[in-house]
């Protein structure tokens, strides 16, 4: 990436000088309350493994998004930008993380729309908007509306355990295992959580190494969903085989295992995405020096 992109206009403040720092403040406001809560109970090291809000994937996505925002095409900050900054700041003043999440998504969408000619700005906006939306899905929205998703998990787990021995029943998000460990699929264990983590990890890899979106990028999504869903259902099924296995698989060992699987799936999907995007297709309209010569 040419460093020329980071040079500010001489007669004013450059937008890419403001956005990375401002976005970092919004992210901190969005994630800090939950991060402090979890770290208070389990410590920071375990919190990075057990909580989406402070996971390494979120940290990596935030860092990549900030880097891309710095590299966005420079332009002067105008009145619309100041309005967007003021609106997001007001939302951040509300002492509830959900308001900051809303500010994050809204500001990222504004940034992506205003600088839609700059692939780096759109990529940064995609990452931050994706991060905010995923946090909303995993937080209040999942707790309220994901009963059916958790019931689907329970259905799949009951059928996997039914292959081992008969007598397993399920209802709503409960799995009754007479010969093993009965389970309740809650919002934290539902497959949608590692699934969103993996999607964010893939998005981070894809956008960091090739900021410009292509229509075919989303074709890889089903190949992310399937292995992560299978891995998480197998993990929950292993929990149900016995109380001892529950302790192991539900604890740090199981968490590390599912995290590693998610990251490997994301890396494989990211490589596939990048491999199907030759460098020659990369738009360079905002920097004539990088445009192909005819």
């Amino acid at each position: 990436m040419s460093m020329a992109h980071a040079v500010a206009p001489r007669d004013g403040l450059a937008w890419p000088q403001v956005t990375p720092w401002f976005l970092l403040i919004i992210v901190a406001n969005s994630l800090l309350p939950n991060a402090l809560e979890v770290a208070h109970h389990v410590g920071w090291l375990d919190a990075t493994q057990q909580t989406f809000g402070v996971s390494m994937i979120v940290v990596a996505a935030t860092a990549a998004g900030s880097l891309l925002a710095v590299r966005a095409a420079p332009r002067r900050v105008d009145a619309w930008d100041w309005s967007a900054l003021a609106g997001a700041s007001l939302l951040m003043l509300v002492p509830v993380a959900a308001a900051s999440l809303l500010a994050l998504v809204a500001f990222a969408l504004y940034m992506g729309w205003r600088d839609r000619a700059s692939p780096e700005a759109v990529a940064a906006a995609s990452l931050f908007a994706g991060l905010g939306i995923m946090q909303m899905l995993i937080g209040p929205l999942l707790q309220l509306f994901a009963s059916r998703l958790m019931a689907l998990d329970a259905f799949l787990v009951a059928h996997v355990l039914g292959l081992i021995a008969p007598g397993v029943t399920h209802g709503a998000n409960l799995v009754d295992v007479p010969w093993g460990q009965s389970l309740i699929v809650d919002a934290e264990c539902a497959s949608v959580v590692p699934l969103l983590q993996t999607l964010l990890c893939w998005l981070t890899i894809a956008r960091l190494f090739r900021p410009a979106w292509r229509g075919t990028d989303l074709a890889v999504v089903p190949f992310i969903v399937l292995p992560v869903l299978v891995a998480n259902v197998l993990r929950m099924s292993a929990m149900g085989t016995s109380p001892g296995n529950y302790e192991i698989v539900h604890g740090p060992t199981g968490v590390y295992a599912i995290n590693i699987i998610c990251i490997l799936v994301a890396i494989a999907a990211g490589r596939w995405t990048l491999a199907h995007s030759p460098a020659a297709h990369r738009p360079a309209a905002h920097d004539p020096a990088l445009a192909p010569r005819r």
Partner: protein
Amino acid sequence: MIRHWRLAASLAALAALTLGPKIALHGSLSMLDAGRADQLRTERFLADNGWSRQEAIVLTLDGSMPAARYARAGCATGMTVVIAPPRADAFPLIGALARDDDRIVFIFDGRALDQPPSNTALLRWKFARILRAVTATGTTTRGDASSAILGVVVPPDCPAARDIPWSAA
């Protein structure tokens, strides 16, 4: 790299102004403390109404949904009271405790309901809490009088359960 000191100062002030209240709110009461407070409040309420705690029931291995059986004259077999987080995924577990002829009462937001609160009711309640947090400076968004749902499983031979003034719980 931030080149303008005024920009740097503004961003630092914004970070302090917005993060400060959130950190202060966190310090006021943790979620674990709030759960324990719910448990103590429920036990005190039932004791005040003549119910004695018989046994604790382990529903979840991590103790996230404390439950106990309570009995008094007119309810010898006892009723089961579960303190659950206000989340839809907790309701089936409460339902699973009931036998065919048992009645389940959900105590939510000062009301006794025969059905679990709907998603709309939960969402409205969450918005109300957010509004309270915004309008009452220094008041935590967690741990106030209605931070949990009580699921009460009442057997048929427990007429005393009808006399409990749940709206005061």
